[in-house]
C-alpha cells in the first residue's frame, strides 16, 4: 500500500486510509442490507404485514443467480435482472393466493404463516439443491482491488455501492416524482382514505409486494459473494439482520431503510475492526438504544421524509 504513514500496529490502526477503507466497506455492506430490507420495510409500513418470509425471496434470488451462472454459464450481470424478476413473480403469485387472506389477520397469525413459509422453503431448497452453499464466481472485471489516493477498495464493493445507490435513487425518484408513487405514499399514510379517493389499493399492494420481493432477490444475488454462497439456511440467517434494519430505520419509506442500513453497515464493520471481540454485538446494542430512544425507529412515520 502507498506510504501515508500507514504503519499499522495492532493496537492503533487509526490512520486515515484504514478508516476510509473501512468506511467504504461499511457503506457497501449497508447498501446490500438496504436492497435486502427495503421491501420488508415498505411491506410493513404499507400493508402492516409482517412478512418474515422476506428472507426466502432473497434466497430465491441468490439461487437464481448461482444456478444460472454455474449450470447454464450465464454471465453474472445478465443474471441480475432475473434475480429480481423471478422472486417478484413468485411474490405476486403468493400475494394473490395466500398473503391477501391474512391482511386483516392478527400479527401473530401473520408471523406464524410467514415463518411457516420459510420452514417450507428451507427444506425444499435443501432437497432440490443440497445443503452445500452454492458459490458465485465473480467475473474477473469485478474481482480484485483498486487504490484511489492510497485508499484500497474492492472492485465488487464499489460495484455494489454504485448499483444499490442507483436503485435507492431510482426508488426515491419514483416515490416522489410519479403518480404511482404519490398513490403509494397516500396509501401508506391512510389506506382507507386513499381507497375512498379511488386509489386501487389492491393493485398497489400487489405491485409493491412484487417489487419488494424482487429487490430482496436482487439483494440475495449481490450478497452471495460476500457471505460465502447461498445455502438453504440463508432466510433465517439474515432475517434478524433485515429486521434490525427495519427496526432502526423505521418501517416506512425508502429513506428510513437506507439510513438504517447504512448506519448498521458502517457500525458493524467499524465495530468488528476496532473491537473484534464484541464487534458483532454492536448492531444489537444500537438496536436496543434506538428502541429505547425512538421506539418507532429513527425515521418513523410522521417525522417527515
Amino acid at each position, binding site marked *: *500500500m502507498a506510504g501515508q504513514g*500507514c504503519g*499499522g*500496529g*495492532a493496537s492503533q*490502526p487509526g490512520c486515515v486510509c*484504514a478508516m476510509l*477503507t*473501512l468506511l467504504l*466497506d461499511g457503506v457497501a*455492506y449497508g447498501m446490500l442490507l438496504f436492497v435486502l430490507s427495503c421491501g420488508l420495510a415498505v411491506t410493513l409500513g404499507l400493508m402492516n404485514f409482517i412478512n418474515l418470509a422476506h428472507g426466502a425471496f432473497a434466497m430465491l434470488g441468490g439461487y437464481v443467480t448461482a444456478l444460472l451462472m454455474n449450470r447454464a454459464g450465464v454471465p453474472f450481470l445478465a443474471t441480475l435482472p432475473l434475480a429480481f424478476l423471478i422472486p417478484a413473480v413468485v411474490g405476486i403469485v403468493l400475494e394473490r393466493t395466500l398473503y391477501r387472506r391474512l391482511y386483516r389477520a392478527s400479527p401473530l397469525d401473520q408471523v406464524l404463516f410467514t415463518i411457516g413459509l420459510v420452514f417450507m422453503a428451507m427444506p425444499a431448497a*435443501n432437497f432440490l439443491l443440497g*445443503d*452445500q*452453499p452454492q*458459490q458465485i*464466481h465473480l467475473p474477473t472485471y469485478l*474481482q*480484485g*482491488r483498486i487504490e484511489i489516493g492510497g485508499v*484500497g477498495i*474492492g472492485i*465488487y464493493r464499489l460495484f455494489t455501492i454504485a448499483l444499490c445507490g442507483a436503485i435507492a435513487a431510482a426508488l426515491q425518484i419514483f416515490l416522489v416524482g410519479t403518480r404511482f408513487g404519490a398513490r403509494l405514499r397516500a396509501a401508506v399514510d391512510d389506506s382507507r382514505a386513499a381507497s375512498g379517493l379511488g386509489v386501487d389499493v389492491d393493485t398497489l399492494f400487489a405491485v409493491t409486494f412484487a417489487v419488494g420481493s424482487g429487490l430482496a432477490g436482487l439483494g440475495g444475488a449481490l450478497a452471495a*459473494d*460476500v*457471505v*460465502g*454462497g447461498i445455502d438453504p*439456511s440463508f432466510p433465517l*440467517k*439474515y432475517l434478524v*439482520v433485515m429486521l434490525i434494519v427495519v427496526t432502526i430505520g423505521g418501517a416506512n419509506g425508502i429513506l428510513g431503510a437506507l439510513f438504517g442500513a447504512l448506519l448498521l453497515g458502517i457500525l458493524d*464493520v*467499524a*465495530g*468488528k*475492526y476496532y473491537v*473484534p*471481540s464484541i*464487534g*458483532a454485538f454492536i448492531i444489537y446494542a444500537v438496536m436496543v438504544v434506538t428502541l429505547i430512544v425512538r421506539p418507532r425507529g429513527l425515521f418513523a412515520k410522521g417525522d417527515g421524509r
Partner: protein
Amino acid sequence: MRTGVLTVALTLALSSAAWAEDVTLGMILPMTGPSASTGKQEKAGAELYMAQHGATVAGKTIRLEIKDDTGAADVTKRLAQDLISNDHAAALLGFGLTPLALAVAPIATEAKVPQIVTAAATAVITEKSPFIVRTSYTLPQACAPMADWAFKNGIKKVVSIVIDYGPGLDAEKWFGDTFKKDGGEIVEAIRVPLKNPDFAPFLQRVADDKPDAVFVFVPSGFGAVFMKQFVERGLDKAGIKLIGDGGVTDDDQLAGIGDVALGAVTAHHYSAAHDSAENKAFVQAFVKANGFLPNFMAVAAYDGMALVYHALETTKGDTDGAGLLAAMKGAKWMSPRGPLEIDADTREIVQNVYIRKVEKKDGALFNVEFETIPMVKDPFKASKK
C-alpha cells in the same frame, strides 16, 4: 443343562431386540442442519467400509443404524439412550460436533458402551469418559506441527484468526503456544463470531498488522468465503502467506472454493490426494459409490468401522463393552490416510500429520502433501504428563 438351554431360549424369545447373532452399531450424525455435510461424508465412509468388508464379523451380523441428531446435543443424547436401551448397540460412533460428543459421554460411561468419536476434534473429549475412543483427529495434533513448520520455514510473525468457538479456541491456543515456544511472534489473535462471518473487517486488521503469514481456522463451509475475501483484500499480493488447519481447504469444498485457494499451506491428517495404494483404492471406490470425493470426515468414519470390526474379531464376537474397549486400545492398522494407532493410555488416535499445499492436478484442486510428521500423539494429553 436343559434348564440352561431353556433359559437361553426363553431369553432369546423374550428379548425385543435383534437376535443374539446380530450386533447393532449406532452411528449418530448431523444429517440435517448446518453440519449436514459432515453427516453425508461420514455415512458414505461407514457404508463403504461395510460394503467392502461385508456385514459379518466373527460369526455375527453387523447392523449399522445411522441416526440424525440435526446437530442438537439433546437429540444426540436421546438417540444414544435409545440405541443403547432399545437396540442394544454394542458401540456408538459419529458425533459431528464437540457438544454432541460430550453430551453422550456420561451415557457411554454408565452403560459401558464404547463411544467412537469419528468427527469432533476438541482435544478434551477423550477425557470425559473412559469409554471414548477417537478416530478423527484433535486440533492440537494438527496445529502444533503447523506452527513448527511455519517457524522452520521463515515465518516469524503471524496473525491468527479463528472462529470463536471450542475447536477454534483450541486451534488458536495450540498454534500460538507452539509458535511462541519455537521463537515466533503472534502479532494478534483475532476471534470471529460464529454467526454471520463477514471477514472483511477482520482481514483489514490482518492487512494493517502486516504479518508474514495468517493462520486460520474455520469450520468447513467457511473456507470458501475466507479465501475469496483474503484474495479480494489483496493479502496474497501483499506477501502474506495463508497457513492453517486443513479444514479450511476441505477436499469436499475445494472445487467450490476455486483457484483462490492455490498455494494455501495447511496441516491435516488426510488428503484425498494422499499417495498410497490404500488411499487410491479408497477414493476410487468412494467416488464410484457416491459421486463425490471423500474428505477427512469420511475416512474417519471408515476407520471407525475398521476399529469396531477389529475389536469384534479380537473378542471373537463378544459384545461386552469393556472387552471391546480393551481390544481397541493399542490397535494398529493401515488406513487410507496412513498408519494409525489407538493410544492405549489416552484412547486417542495417533497418526501422521501432513503439511500440504493446494495445487492443481489434472485440472482439479487437491491438497498435495509435501512433508510428513510421523505418528503425532495429541500434544494436549502429552503436556499433562
